[in-house]
């Protein structure tokens, strides 16, 4: 993920968009964030995996929305006016991440990012690419590629 950083950016620092999920703090690389939208009801897809909340209309295109909380093995996000959808782009794939709330934009020196310790028992563990501490809070950096559905596997 960190490879996606544009060359214009100061390479010694990384900017993260941090958000809240069930009182925990997560973040994604801000370079992969396209926009942040308020909560709109998603049209559910039949027979879709539980973390796929459905699809919403993003200015004429159909955007799938992933309930990040369910994806990380927690209880579903309520889905009300306080929740937001972070529209992220990874390669050619665009998707919305439903989160509780967006909190901050953080600038963190790269060397302060640490690889997560290997704890195979945690289902969310595979989705975290790095950890860091800001003002005493631990912030997880999400690995978008593993959070988003794999578009190459299924060509049907």
């Amino acid at each position: 993920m960190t490879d996606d950083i544009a060359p214009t950016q100061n390479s010694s620092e990384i900017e993260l968009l941090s958000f809240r999920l069930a009182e925990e703090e997560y973040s994604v690389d801000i370079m992969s964030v396209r926009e942040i939208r308020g909560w709109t009801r998603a049209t559910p897809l039949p027979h879709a995996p539980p973390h796929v909340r459905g699809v919403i209309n993003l200015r004429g295109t159909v955007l799938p929305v992933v309930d990040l909380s369910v994806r990380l093995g927690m209880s579903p996000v309520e889905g009300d006016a306080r929740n937001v959808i972070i529209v992220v782009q990874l390669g050619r794939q665009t998707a919305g991440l439903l989160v509780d709330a967006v909190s901050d934009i953080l600038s963190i020196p790269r060397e302060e990012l640490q690889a997560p310790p290997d704890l195979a028992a945690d289902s969310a563990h595979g989705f975290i690419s790095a950890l860091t501490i800001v003002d005493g809070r631990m912030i997880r950096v999400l690995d978008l590629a593993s959070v988003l559905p794999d578009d190459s596997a299924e060509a049907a």
Partner: protein
Amino acid sequence: MSDPMAEIRASFFIECEELLESLQDALNDMDDGASDSETINVVFRAVHSIKGGAGAFGLDALVAFAHRYETVMDEVRSGKMAVSPEAIKLFFHAADLLSDHVRSARDQTPVPADSESCLQELEALMGIDHSAAAAEEEVSSDDFQPMGLALDLDFGDDDGGLPSLDDTIQDSVLVVSFTPKPELYASGNEPLHLIRALRALTEESKIETHFNALPPLEQLDPEASYITWSITLRGDVDESDIREVFDFVEDVCELEITSTEDDSGPFEVLAELISEPTLSDEAEVTAAIEPVSVNEPAARDEPVAAPTPPPSPPVAPSASGGGRQSSPSAEAGATVRVDLERIDRLVNLVGELVINQAMLAQSVSEAGLPPNSAVMTGLEAFMMLTRDIQDSVMMIRAQPVKPLFQRMGRIVREASAAVGKEVKLKVEGETTEVDKTVIERLADPLTHMIRNSVDHGLETPDKRLAAGKPEEGVITLSAQHRSGRVVIEIEDDGAGINRPKVLQKAIEKGLVPADASLSDGEIDNLLFLPGFSTADQVSALSGRGVGMDVVRSSIQSLGGRITIQSEPGKGTIFSISLPLTLAVLDGMVVNVAGETMVVPLSSILETTTLTQGDIRALGPNTNVIHVRGEFVPLYDLGAELGYRGTKSDYEGCIALLTAQENGTRSALIVDAIMEQRQVVIKGLQRSYGHIPGVAAATILGDGQIALILDPADLVQNATGHTRTADFALAG
């Protein structure tokens, strides 16, 4: 220079495609028994024109191939060679190779390998009928002519300009020797204008054109300058006037002006003027040049002499003269070539327009205006207009299936040759128009199915004879519009599906349980299971078990469906039913468990409100309804899609009666019908794979996304081999 050349090259290849198409048509006609000279001429001309164009671009391999093909066709045309069925087969093969050659020239890929053997076969065939084939080959290398062009050089005096005999003796005679350098042409100058300007200087002039330097064609450099002129001017002309005419081209030509004594009388000049055919007036020149003979140099020099092509259409004179026809493309109606991207953009914009219009309609109705207010009527007119625009835009994208079908002709020829069967392809409804994208994405599945029909569908010749059928098998490929869809059928007159064998194979492969008892239709559908192949031997063509399942999924991804009808001993029909366009559809907007969904109108037969008497229990978990004398299985959409559980009582519910291509009916329970509307199809991202029963999505007037259902797929997935389990959900 490279850019305009590339453009001309591109248009040459587009022309080639058209010529190849007409070549195929003519060969098909010949195959059907047409032996008139016009049909053969069309073949000849198509090959000839490709050769001529290719010569201009220096595509040597293509020229060489087309030339030898043409030579053979010339033999046929002159009646020296009888057209036997074998010959026609070879002609087809050569035509296929010719298109390969064109493609390889265009994409700069290696030329097809077996072209030499095909040509040799062709020539051998000709040699049998006509012993001078080899000699002909030698000689004919000369008769490659560039396309003759109508000549509109206006050198001649018209009648008013003829000098009279009793003119006074002229002051002087000046001979202007004019030798243009290649740079003159390169800088866009036109000798014709110069010569005209010269002639305007005096009343009496004589123009001689010298072709002495013109090399044989194969050595001709199209950008070099070979032709010189000497112009004799009689009268009151000053040398400086002449110099002035050539003022701008002085350094790109050799100019020599000599003053001679008046050695020939005006009469003599006049006689020469009259006897020189190229000096007649413009219309006559054009008329005289058209049936140009091989040795007419004037026709040859024109492409060199004129940097800008003359407006008259190119004429393709045949090597032996005669047979001059306007090119076939000229007969088609006026057309414009448009970049596909622009059309797609237009299609998208119209799609947005439709969505916008729906949103507007919704907000107007929410505003609570009376139904016959000006706004409402205006909106209605707007809706009709939108619809018209949409139809017209869709029509732009529609293309006849003919090129696709012609490709299939080739597949049949190649496949039948590979398996040693005699196969004839009959094509029907090739003018049927389908969306371009559909055509493009249909090529692969269709190829596969045609190969299958040749390989598995038709029997071997001896088996056919034993069954009392003609040795030659027939595959019929047809296309037609049927109730808003396009139906493409591939029919063979083979042995039909060997159902016991199919069932046995399926059991062997563990695709169905050994004790399964399946209906004929169900056995036929086993062919579409992944990993199924009936062929005992895996041939080069088919039988590797990746086949019909791929065909079916690619047809389904086009929103189409495929069905089989087969009758033992009579043959098999595969029907592909496709939507006309991939962009919009007429749908019924319904409500299922609080979700808005769209059901394609084309699949709905009728809607009905269920009463207690309609519903009958079939099994413990299943219901059927009795409609118009038929028992129709009942599916609860809400439960099938997993939105809610089944209801305890379906009395009073609304059911949509849907029909599939194969005639199967099913009733889908919905909670409410909201409206009927045209919706724009938006593809779902493929991230989640194929969602059973859902074809696509659309955006409604309120900005919400609604799923577009595919009833046939829905029913199929609900009744598949796990029938009982799914019925438990549905019941």
